[in-house]
């Protein structure tokens, strides 16, 4: 197929499908870095016009990264559900956008087609959509998962409590955990990024969070965000592992740079399932992704960073995760330069994830070397919550003192729940009320020294060292 589009006297020619995709992408520093971005606005618009005319079927034939050399491509093609696809198989990318925006294309309809949509189709259509389109369609998608509580119900917004500490100090982590719980945070997961890779220290962290969850009988799950091979070893050593975490990317080579492949993730999932620790569901995986990771590993093969990101969702989808988190502004300005680019990327990732059927949340964040600030985060979190975001991060003061980046605070979750009338996961909300953290109207209560959470604090965590 020849990919080209004429505007007036100018004909813009594109080398191949991935060239059309890259040049149709809203401008961002990572695609300039990779040398795949459109050189002019006119070229970008021509690429979009060209993309709009391409049949969705073409993405099954003209794969962007060869089937033979990339296991993610093989996964996408081999797991494609042709029956689910049949409903949209006659559409072009432009038609697909229009179809998604129809009132008659409702939640049930979108759930039916999800497994017939490939990451490339999702990425392609997103490039033709304005922010409001990305918000509206994502809002119509519902993805429900469960482990010790139910995540993703309509009208709910969960949060990951992220009690990181620069030296993994047990009391520091426990203090942040308690702080977050008292603000109603932690229903998605209590997930710690450890500073250390040391297996004995990781074992201690698993036991610490498990102890707190048991002590207060919290209907939530824990996760320690270390390499998947560490987690498999720790499961073998008897660690109380709820969710298995891994960072994933959209190409085989990028995943290799993370030290993983799909088979390893399947093994990890089987190991976590064997522990049977879920009570209301069996979604045992937690994935993190982010635009730019494939390019950063020199493994994007000329595919734009947003499409690479969407391909990572195929890997995630294959493993039925409880949560998938796009850590949108974490990677730095060489991939997403400023607040505008971060906001756009966050909305794209959330839309693509939801369209593909993923329980996707967003680490609404930036680094201090990017041109962004907390106001940009307010904008993005408000837009995403309007779009039905599954979960976001909760960190004391929105300042991660271990990973050194700026994300969202416990208050931010409360702000969004208050603003948009959203609730925590139902089992967790019931617990918040039982523990007198939240009143019957869902308002967070003032905490006195006699509060049961403070009185029941595990005593060894209160002792001075």
């Amino acid at each position, binding site marked *: 197929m020849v990919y080209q589009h004429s505007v007036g006297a100018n004909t813009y020619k594109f080398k191949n499908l991935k060239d059309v995709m890259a040049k149709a992408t809203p401008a961002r*520093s990572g695609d*300039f*870095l990779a040398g795949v971005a459109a050189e002019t606005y006119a070229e970008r618009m021509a690429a979009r016009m060209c993309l709009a005319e391409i049949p969705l079927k073409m993405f099954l034939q003209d794969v962007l990264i060869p089937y033979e050399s990339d296991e993610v491509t093989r996964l996408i093609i081999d797991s494609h559900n042709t029956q689910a696809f049949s409903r949209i198989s006659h559409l072009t990318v432009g038609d697909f956008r229009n179809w998604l925006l129809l009132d008659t294309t409702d939640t049930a309809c979108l759930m039916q087609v999800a497994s017939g949509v490939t990451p490339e189709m999702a990425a392609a259509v997103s490039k033709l959509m304005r922010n409001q389109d990305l918000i509206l369609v994502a809002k119509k998608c519902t993805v429900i998962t469960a482990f010790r509580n139910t995540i993703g119900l309509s009208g709910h917004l969960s949060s990951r409590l992220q009690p990181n500490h*620069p*030296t993994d*100090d047990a009391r520091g982590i426990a203090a942040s955990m308690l702080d977050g719980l008292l603000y109603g945070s932690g229903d998605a997961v209590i997930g710690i990024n450890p*500073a*250390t*890779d*040391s*297996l*004995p*220290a990781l074992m201690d962290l698993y036991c610490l969070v498990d102890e707190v969850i048991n002590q207060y009988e919290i209907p939530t799950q824990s996760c320690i965000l270390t*390499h998947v*091979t*560490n987690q498999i*070893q720790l499961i073998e050593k008897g660690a109380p592992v709820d969710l298995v975490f891994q960072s994933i990317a959209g190409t085989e080579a990028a995943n*290799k*740079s*993370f*030290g993983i492949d799909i088979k390893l993730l399947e093994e990890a999932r089987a190991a976590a399932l064997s522990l049977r620790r879920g009570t209301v569901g069996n979604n045992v995986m937690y994935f993190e992704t982010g635009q730019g990771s494939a390019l*950063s*590993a*020199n493994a994007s093969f000329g595919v734009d960073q947003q499409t690479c990101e969407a391909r990572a969702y195929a890997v995630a989808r294959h493993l039925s995760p409880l949560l998938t988190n796009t850590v949108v502004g974490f990677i*730095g*300005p*060489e991939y997403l*330069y400023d607040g505008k680019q971060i906001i756009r990327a966050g909305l794209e990732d959330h839309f693509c994830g939801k369209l593909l059927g993923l329980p996707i949340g967003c680490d609404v964040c930036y*680094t*201090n*070397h990017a041109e962004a600030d907390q106001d940009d985060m307010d904008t993005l979190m408000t837009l995403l919550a309007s779009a039905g975001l599954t979960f976001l991060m909760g960190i004391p003061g929105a*300042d*991660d*003192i*271990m*990973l*050194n*980046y*700026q994300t969202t605070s416990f208050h931010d979750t409360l702000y969004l729940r208050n603003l948009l009338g959203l609730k925590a996961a139902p089992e967790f909300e019931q617990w918040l009320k039982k523990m007198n953290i939240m009143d019957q109207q869902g308002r967070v209560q003032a905490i006195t020294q006699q509060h049961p959470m403070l009185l029941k604090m595990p005593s060894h965590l209160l002792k001075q*060292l």
Partner: protein
Amino acid sequence: MARDAVHLALDVHALETTLNAQGLRTIHVCSKATDRASYLLRPDFGRRLNEASRLQLQQLNTAPVDFLIVVGDGLSSLAIHRHAAPLIEAIHSIQPEHWSFGSIVIATQARVAIADEIAEILNARMVAMLIGERPGLSSPDSLGIYLTFNPNIRCNDADRNCISNIRAEGLSYSAAAKKLIWLAQEAARIQASGVMLKDESDHIELPVVNLELGG
């Protein structure tokens, strides 16, 4: 402070003076990134030596070393100004005596992977990159160490082990040095670093409380 730390230039002269006073030889090299703007937008530039620096190292024609230390400004020169010299002192005080380490290489406008190229040219069996981490709002001076065994320009992130958060409120110099030497000895034993090398150093360490004393 975090925003300022990103743009603060590394005072190479002051660092060299301090390290020389500790009895160490130093070499200063530059990446392909010519200024901060190109450093921030072109990570590929920060990962490779510029032509002059590459030739400079090649012409040294030095003997192979066991354990090379590279210091890179990264995203926080403040971290290097504050922590590089005392941390190197702590590392050298406990590293095995028979290990040769050669000169300390100071790389400016540097990203982690530039250490691989430097180490390959200098024939180093292992390299420890001491680099200024991305500054956080309340942690603008955090230093990280990346250890690579058999470093070369084909290495990727899965080949490295990382020790992060070295600063007053984080990991102390002595704890970081102990961890690094433990990892380096293990890397030498299994002839690999990165995902293959699991940190079990806390098994052999004295009370964990040591980690919390701060630097």
